[in-house]
């Protein structure tokens, strides 16, 4: 469980919020503070006021995998294989273990054929996949994904979301503008102007915004299909 108490930081102003284990989607308009909230939870920034705990730990003490909204922003190496294996190399794991884990995570993210490419020659979507593989290779307790899906085509993002949901990571926190992806989460946190406008299951939260463009398109289609078939 992630507990947020009295946090003020930049635009973020959250008196209290509890995010359960599982898959949480953070949604909201541009500039509502989604990325700022994710950075604080990932321990990349300290809140000016208030505190966040993840289980019994502070964000900085937790094993967090992070994917930046601009892929390549956090890259350290020029070759894909070096970038993906770097978290394990820094921990001095054995070469066999690193090779085996890299092959596993590359297959999961569909980038086995890119391992010897230079990062600079990859497309934006491919760079996201590399960032995701790098975040996943050390099997973090929490995976924080800052709008990773916006650079991906629909089949790729659906396939990867499925991998993430079944990949054994206890807590996944992601922000997205894809409401169909958000609807597949266990919990939704809807931010506006730095505050939590609504939180709960997708049914709870999206049920309150049926007449807005935040309502998941796939839900509209499902309802239309039911109506049109009588």
């Amino acid at each position, binding site marked *: 469980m992630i507990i947020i108490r009295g946090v003020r930081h930049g635009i973020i102003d959250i008196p209290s919020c509890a995010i359960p284990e599982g898959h949480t989607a953070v949604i*909201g*308009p*541009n*500039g509502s503070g*989604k*990325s700022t909230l994710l950075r604080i939870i990932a321990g990349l920034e300290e809140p000016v006021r208030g505190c966040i705990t993840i289980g019994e730990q502070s964000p900085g003490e937790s094993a967090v995998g992070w994917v930046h*909204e*601009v892929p390549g922003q956090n890259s350290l190496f020029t070759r894909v294989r070096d970038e993906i294996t770097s978290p394990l190399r820094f921990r001095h794991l054995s070469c066999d273990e690193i090779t085996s884990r890299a092959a596993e995570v590359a297959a999961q993210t569909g980038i086995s*054929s*890119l391992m010897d*490419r230079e990062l600079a*020659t*990859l*497309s*934006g*979507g*491919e760079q996201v*996949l590399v960032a995701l593989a790098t975040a996943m290779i050390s099997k973090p307790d929490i995976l924080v994904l800052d*709008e990773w899906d*916006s*650079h*991906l*085509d*629909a*089949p*790729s993002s659906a396939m990867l979301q499925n991998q993430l949901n079944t990949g054994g990571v206890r807590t996944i926190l992601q922000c997205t*503008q894809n*409401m169909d992806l958000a609807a597949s989460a266990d919990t939704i946190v809807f931010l506006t102007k730095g505050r939590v406008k609504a939180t709960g299951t997708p049914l709870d939260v999206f049920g309150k915004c049926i007449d*807005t*463009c*935040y309502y998941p*398109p*796939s839900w509209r*289609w499902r309802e*239309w*299909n039911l*109506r*049109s078939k009588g």
Partner: protein
Amino acid sequence: MEVEGMELAFEGVSVTRGSYDIRVSGSFCQGINLVSGRVGSGKSTVAAMAAGILSPDGGSIHRKGISTSMLSFQFPESGLTGSTVKEEVYSYGVHDADTLAMADLSGRGEDDPLSLSRGELKKLSLACVLSRPWDLLVLDGPFEALDCRGKREVCRWIEHRRSSIVILCTHEQHILPRIDALWEFQEHTLVFRGLVPEALARWDLAPTSIKTLISRGTLPFNVSEDDIREAACRIQG
């Protein structure tokens, strides 16, 4: 000024990427050309060649009647030149107040552009690009990071550019402008699917809504939200 018969022609163009080639042949004409494709298929490569910032390894690219062109980058962070939002707007040679209003950033002219959220920065860069007329306008991933209201607004801006050659490379599935022509990558070869609406039946990566409508015997007139709703109403009666 509208130029009759503008055309951007790719003749046997190829670019080598690792172990494969990206191949493009065909002509982009006036109107909105949607380029669809999987991750890594070659959309950004085509965008860069169309804008003239990448030379092909093989083949040739010809511009007919095109005097001005502009590329909207997939990642606007990498193209920033101003240290304030206002300076960034000026760098495009456009009026700051109008452009800031377009981007919903009125009153934030003195802010550091890197202090904007990614969606705000994306909208700012699109507002700058779309504040001036261009014969050729290349938009690489324009909807990425935008919220649904922003996407709808950008669709309206793009639809006003139908007299230009607009090349729109995107993964967006739900909120799209009305388009004129459809192109799609098959593996790494760009294929012209045809003019809309007939081309929609040949679109492999078509959104679920369009595939559902076609499977039930109804071809939408176009790909905008209004067109999809109208086609759905035709079925429902």
